[in-house]
């Protein structure tokens, strides 16, 4: 009995400790997930699931422009492939770091953001400074459905950012040859696709070959995450990338993106076996492959 009491007190004390170290501002059960906004030191973060959930997005309260995550900086590497986008599509909102940064970088850029969870759009606006206007439109929709509808319109994008995955869950219908072909159809000739993917598992090879089948050669940037950078009419050489990086250096500095850090990550090495099976609408067990 005494032991049980001791354990209970210990558990209570521990949960109290973890509760005070992070200051929870908002929790919500949405249709798709548990959403939590919390502050820790200088950072305000968005997390799906509680305590053990992965951070989706963070802003630094004393330096809100700074892109806190390495992967978001790597995504901005897309601008090295096409430094003057007119129209951008972002699939997956999170805290809105990417659209907010693009908004500030390019005042005239037309940005379409697609997010499946209306609650995430609300939370991004309320806690992370994401704003919508005629130039920044947020649509509540499944990403694939939006892309398929957009093909039937005349809308084409010269920058598409795919940021709908996290470590725990991949929307499998958004990692297939057919989906990537639809995305390709939405890109202008010089259009660039930046995809944030998480695979370091067995899925890595499957994902690589699927992108390669649809787009041919691409730049592969690795950190904790993997970011794939593709230009529709083929990857520019490193000379052009460095030139664009120099031109953008001053503009990107406030966002914490430095070419000294980013450029060495650019790789075109195909480090996956060429005989891997591509993922298709018929065969897409991405989440099962990601656990192996």
């Amino acid at each position, binding site marked *: 009995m005494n032991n049980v009491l001791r354990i209970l007190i210990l558990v209570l004390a521990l949960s109290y400790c973890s509760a005070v170290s992070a200051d929870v501002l908002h929790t919500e059960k949405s249709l798709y997930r548990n959403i939590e906004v919390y502050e820790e030191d200088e950072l305000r973060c968005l997390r799906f699931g509680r305590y053990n959930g992965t951070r989706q997005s963070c802003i630094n309260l004393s330096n809100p422009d700074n892109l806190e995550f390495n992967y978001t900086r790597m995504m901005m590497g897309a601008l090295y492939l096409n430094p003057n986008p007119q129209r951008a599509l972002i699939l997956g909102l999170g805290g809105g770091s990417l659209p907010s940064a693009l908004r500030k970088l390019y005042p005239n850029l037309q940005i379409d953001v697609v997010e499946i969870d209306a609650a995430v759009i609300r939370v991004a606006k309320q806690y992370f400074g994401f704003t919508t206007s005629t130039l920044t439109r947020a649509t509540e929709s*499944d990403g694939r459905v939006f892309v398929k509808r957009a093909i039937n319109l005349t809308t084409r994008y010269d920058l598409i950012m795919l940021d709908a995955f996290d470590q725990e869950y991949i929307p499998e219908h958004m990692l297939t040859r*057919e*989906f990537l072909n639809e995305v390709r159809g939405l890109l202008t000739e010089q259009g660039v696709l930046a995809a944030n993917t998480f695979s370091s598992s067995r899925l890595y090879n499957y994902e690589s070959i699927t992108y390669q089948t649809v787009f041919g050669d691409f730049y592969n940037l690795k950190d904790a995450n993997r970011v794939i950078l593709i230009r529709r009419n083929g990857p520019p050489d490193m000379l052009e990338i460095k030139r664009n990086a120099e031109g953008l250096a001053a503009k990107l500095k406030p966002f914490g993106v430095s070419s000294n850090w980013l450029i060495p990550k650019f790789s075109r090495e195909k480090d996956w076996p060429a005989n891997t099976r591509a993922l298709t609408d018929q065969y*897409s067990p991405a989440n099962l492959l990601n656990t192996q």
Partner: protein
Amino acid sequence: MAGWSGFFVMAIELLSGRILAPSFGNSIYVWGGVISIFMLALSIGYLIGGHLSVHTPTLGKLGVILIAASLTSLPVVFFSDVLIDLVFNHVSDPRYGSLLASSTLFFIPTVISGCISPYAIRLLVTQLHASGQSAGKLYFISTFGSAAGTIGTSFYLVLLFEVNQIFSGLILISLSLGGIALLLNTTHE
């Protein structure tokens, strides 16, 4: 056969999500639409199956029902792309789009599958006092089959095969089981 039918229905229900996702997404309402259609179809199937069982039920006729359910699933393999594109282009709301697409593709085979359990109960029941026991056994077998179909498809089959390969396999097994039932029936007579 009731166990297999349970397996068949749940495997198809799971795969229907896969078939609809490219056009209607994976949103919660797509699953809501799919599950509603399957439940509605099964409920109607139970009613029809019970009604059919009144007129001289035989194992052979049960086999015919199983064969009919598998044959009416064939359009899913051959025409689902065309049909889903058609619905996608005419219905902009993904809720009603997925509802319409899943009813056209899956409603009829699921109604027919629903006929199997009540019909099989009639064949099993020999004495009134044991009818509850027979029904209990049948519910056990068919729902156990459903559980097996759900876990087998979602955990293993999708990792090994393409969606259409799984569909074809399911249809072939149904056809064989229906054929066996027909054969057994004629040898008995």
